[in-house]
């Protein structure tokens, strides 16, 4: 196995771990079902996706990651296919398209990109589910009780685990061309 394949395997394992962490976080710590209106959705996979997208330049590879992980996410967590499957690749292509604007990725940039991606993803899911009558929450309730707390919680988490995650994804993507 050459270094490139090994790096790709590493990236996939990283994304898979983040994928399972989403469900386990929700199940183990944020399981506020009995009382309370607020709904916090952990989006750790999106964090991993944003960090990876900021570092990989190959758009085909990005699209493949987006579609495959989107499909798995939809099928496993939602039971409806077409939410993450479409929104994730869109986000990745969007980030890839505009990332030339940043000379060097730093925490501030990546935090705001993650913020925008999360807002886009959650609003997209809300609009699609509303259209298909999977929910009857109105827009203001969605913003107050779902989007707000979700953004807040995920931003804090991103802030806390940024340094190790960013270093890890640096290491997973970058390699020197001569080291075979």
């Amino acid at each position, binding site marked *: 196995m050459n270094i490139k394949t090994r790096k790709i395997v590493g990236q996939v394992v990283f994304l898979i771990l983040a994928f399972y962490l989403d469900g386990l976080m929700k199940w183990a710590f944020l399981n506020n079902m009995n009382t*309370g209106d607020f709904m916090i959705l952990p989006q750790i996979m999106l964090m991993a996706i944003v960090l990876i997208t900021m570092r990989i330049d190959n758009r085909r590879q990005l699209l493949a990651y987006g579609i495959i992980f989107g499909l798995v996410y939809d*099928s*496993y967590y939602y039971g409806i296919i*077409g939410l993450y499957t479409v929104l994730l690749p869109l986000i990745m292509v969007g980030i890839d398209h505009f990332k030339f604007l940043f000379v060097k990725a730093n925490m501030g940039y990546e935090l705001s990109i993650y913020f925008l991606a999360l807002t886009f993803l959650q609003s997209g899911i809300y609009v699609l589910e509303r259209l298909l009558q999977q929910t009857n929450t109105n827009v203001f309730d969605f913003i107050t009780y779902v989007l707000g707390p979700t953004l807040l919680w995920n931003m804090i988490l991103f802030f806390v685990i940024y340094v190790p995650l960013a270093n890890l994804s640096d290491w997973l993507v970058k390699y020197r061309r001569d080291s075979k």
Partner: protein
Amino acid sequence: MQKFFSNKKLIILMVILIVTFGLLAVTVNIRDNKETPPAVQQVGNDVVSVVGGIFAYPTNAVKNASSEFSDLYNTYTENKHLKARIDELAQNQAKLKVVQDENKKLKEELKLNSTLTDYTTVNASVLSRSSSSWQSYLTINRGSTSGLKKNMPVMSGNGLIGRIIEVDKISAKVELISTNNELNDKFASEILDSGNNAITGIVSRYDSASGKLVMENVNSTKNIKKGQRIITSGLGGRTPRGLYIGKVYGIKKDNYGMTNSVYITPAAELRNFTVVTIIKSSVSGEE
């Protein structure tokens, strides 16, 4: 026309839109109307859930340990309370045994094979919770190979927690009773009062602000008192009779003062469990 089809970006956008709505519409339809999802999706979900088990079991262990700590904290008051109840329980158990035997004999006499109260159970452990806002799903590690079918009710410890919504080969999704969904998630139920008059209704909604279940279409509210127990009534054919849902908390009229809703404190602790029980009804109802 030539110009329109030469615009690549417009075509990509169109294809994306068509694919999105096509996929969504098809999968929603399949979920609502078919017993199981397509084979590819089943296999995919099974593989993901098997691998997920590796991460789920340690998490469940931690979860159990943490709930044991809080149990320990409450032990003293609980113990006092339980001691008071224990004599009563022994008496009830003896009585239940006698009545069950009698019931069995009478059924044999009548050549009645199975009634609404008969059911068998399957235990399963929880693998993860859907990180989605409106679909409160749990993934469990049993599927159609264990005899699970769509729409079977699911209990945890002492009360009803939901219903199976998707069955794969070796995993399944449970929709929690706390989901606010227009289409599913309704349980025909009745209130047990001291007299013989059955008060029936449908547990159809969850009030997330107060954490109470709401029972609607109640036929009379005359004898409803706080603290009365609510069980599934077995009408409708999908749920056996006698599954415990919760206790009456209060009655509220709707905004127009037309209908009464009974608010129920759910019996099941909807947070701290790692094992669920699936109820397989012996009577096959409407298909």
